[in-house]
């Protein structure tokens, strides 16, 4: 069995339990902070898969109640889009 600490929590950015715990030990107590500190939740899925797992780890480690661990700040685009969508020609670019 792989090392427990080496277990992945964030699938997209490949962030381990150990890295999340380290972030908490270094003072992170929110999903936003963990995201910025470790990149967990910053990948393509935008924390849809791991945010709940990380919230539980924060709660366990810090005693912070789950209701106070709010989801990461939502920002547009709320779905992964291609960067050319922002170019003035964006809507004309054909799928190459």
């Amino acid at each position: 069995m792989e090392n427990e600490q080496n277990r992945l929590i964030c699938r997209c950015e490949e962030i381990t339990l150990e890295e999340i715990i380290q972030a908490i030990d270094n003072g992170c107590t929110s999903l936003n902070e963990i995201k910025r500190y470790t990149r967990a939740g910053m990948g393509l899925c935008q924390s849809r898969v791991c945010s709940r797992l990380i919230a539980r780890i924060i709660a366990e480690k810090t005693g912070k109640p789950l209701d106070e661990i709010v989801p990461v700040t939502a920002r547009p685009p709320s779905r992964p889009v291609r960067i050319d969508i922002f170019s003035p020609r964006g809507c004309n670019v054909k799928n190459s």
Partner: protein
Amino acid sequence: MSRIAEHPILGPLKPSGREVSILVDGEEVIAYEGEMIAAALMASGRRVFRYTEKRREPRGLYCAIGRCTDCVMIVNGIPNVRTCVTPVEPGMIIETQRGIGRWGGGDHGIH
């Protein structure tokens, strides 16, 4: 990992479109036009869709509805295409994605 030809509730398989040929890592795979790429790949027995950037670990289908982005592959030269929500088109060229993938496809030598 095979197609469900007969189903007790849904009846016989009604393909989403005509049989077409796609190229998966250079091998011909017969798929139905309009079905999701991930379905065609799993029906052909393929479960590994990509290898991750850091750990170089295999990944495959996880959520099947376009949310988790774990099933991304290089499709017609475009990396990070969610195969579970992208329909098959005839002649599609699909490649196992390594790491963050490369535009234009092809192996970029991390494996």
